[in-house]
């Protein structure tokens, strides 16, 4: 009959009206500035630079290789390499960025910089309240603002951070193993050289100069010590 559809519809809207007062499944609104939902683990917004030590500037993992700068589709990254080198997390001497700027207004949150980085040094942050009152200087984010600790990364992306830490641990282990192997090889080489020299000394007339142990001393020094 005409009108029954209207009554059915009105019943439905009345249910919605009443339900919105007591049924949280119906009223899903989150009143944002006061109420917040915890961000999803795979949320991403804007990159940050990971550092490992207390002083963010000393512990930056970035080695200024400029791969991200070259790969960035909208070209929003600007890097200036250092003139000197410093030891990285596994003790290798590396360059570091003197300047590392990302233009917030240009970045499109594509995460390509993160994917191309071979040093696990740039990651995506979940911070989304990035508005700024200064639309020129304020939107150019420098390395001091970008640097965030690895603990922060572990907090916002726990599983990704675990994978990253594992990869770094493998790198460190490899470096240590290599250093150890180097030391052993050097020691062995030295021993062999010594034995050879001894044998030669025995064969040759007394007074000949032994020259074997010289190359072993520079090889053991810097590679093994800071790895621990």
């Amino acid at each position: 009959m005409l009108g029954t559809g209207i009554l059915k519809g009105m019943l439905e809207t009345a249910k919605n009206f009443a339900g919105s007062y007591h049924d949280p499944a119906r009223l899903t609104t989150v009143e944002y500035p006061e109420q917040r939902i915890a961000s999803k683990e795979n949320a991403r917004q804007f990159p940050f630079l990971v550092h490992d030590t207390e002083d963010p500037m000393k512990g930056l993992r970035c080695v200024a290789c400029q791969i991200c700068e070259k790969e960035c589709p909208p070209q929003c990254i600007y890097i200036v390499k250092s003139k000197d080198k410093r030891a990285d997390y596994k003790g290798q001497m590396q360059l570091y960025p003197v300047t590392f700027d990302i233009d917030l207004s240009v970045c499109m949150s594509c995460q390509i910089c993160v994917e191309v980085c071979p040093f696990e040094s740039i990651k995506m942050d979940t911070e989304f309240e990035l508005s700024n009152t200064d639309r020129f200087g304020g939107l150019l984010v420098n390395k001091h603002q970008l640097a965030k600790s690895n603990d922060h990364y572990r907090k916002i992306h726990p599983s990704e951070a675990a994978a990253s830490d594992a990869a770094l641990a493998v790198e460190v282990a490899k470096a240590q193993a290599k250093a150890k192997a180097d030391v052993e090889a050097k020691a062995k080489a030295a021993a062999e050289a010594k034995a050879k020299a001894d044998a030669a000394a025995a064969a040759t007339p007394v007074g000949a100069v032994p020259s074997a142990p010289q190359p072993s001393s520079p090889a053991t020094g810097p590679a093994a010590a800071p790895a621990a």
Partner: protein
Amino acid sequence: MAELFAKLDALPVTLKHLLMGLLPGATPEWLVSVVSAVLTITPILAVFPLMFALTTVIERKGLGRIQNRIGPNRVGIPLTDIRLYGFGQFIADGIKSLIKEDVVPRAADKVVHFLAPIALLIPVLLTYSVLPFGKSMVPLDLPQTGLLFFFAVGASTELSVFMAGWSSRNKYSLLGAMRAIAQMVSYEIPLILSSLTVVMITGTLSLTAIVQSQSGVHFGFLHNWHLFTPWGLVGFFLFLTAAAAEANRTPFDLPEAESEIIAGYFTEYSGFKFAIFFLAEYLGLFAMCGLGITLFLGGWLPPLNIAPLTWIPSWCWFLGKLSALIVLFIWLRGTLPRLRTDQLMAFAWKFLLPMTLINLVVAALWYLLRDSLPLYARWPLCFAMLAVPYWLLGRGFEAKFTKREYRYA
């Protein structure tokens, strides 16, 4: 106790007499009548626009809840954390429309464009002059022509709607105005015919007399509202439908269909002129609801003639019924989608018009059979005489769902 409430009931009238008594004795006659008129008009101009303001917030909150949202709940007292559940919203909206730039299109007919909102608001306000808001609270009691005055003044809003649409020199405005004219003219007929039944039964056009005629009592407690008769019941719903169309309310809001023609006839209005259109639309709706209350819902009479209900002041009853009807209209707005123009016209001419005509006949029969048939036989008979044509006429309007075939070019 009852005397105290009677005093409360007469409070507006007493207050006016008190203020009139403050005039010095030597005041000329014309000044007395002017002061009297101003004192009558002021509360109407205060109460109903305030009601409009509150309705805009309540409507937005209600629609929000219907759509499982919260609705406006932010604006409260500025510079504090007091939110007032968002009921400061209308003040912010009012200030915004006051300070907004008033843009008039270069090609517009500027005089008519300026006059249209005024020509809309004034007739709408005039309709309030004949509505009885309470016991002996009618601004202008026209014993011969009350209802006629209401419809005559109310019909002139069509002219101002067309003035707005035509003078804007905008195709959407004009389309909206054409739709409005077609709709309002079509629905004016069922509106008047459905109210005519009341005039037939009561034999008067005076709205105060119509309210008085409903004060009789059935079974010792139930008031003799026209809603409780079969022709009144059907007439009331026909009246409400036609009133919704007259007031451009959903589902009959074609003249200002946002998704089709921007804002219809007031597309080219901004700032305070837009606010006046908005205000006039709601005041028109309130006036229509007030008339429906007067004709069918016993005006300012309580539903039951028993002690605590009769103590409540009559104007509270009127405002309460008005609020209930406004809530009903908000509810309908949250439920029904907009009609198509052909559906709108077909519904007016093929359903509402025959139903109102049949209702007239049934009302006449109800009156003629008042002595020869007892109530328990007369009521079902008259109701059946309306229900059968309702069913027959309604068959053509039921949704016919067929499997839709999509054709791709």
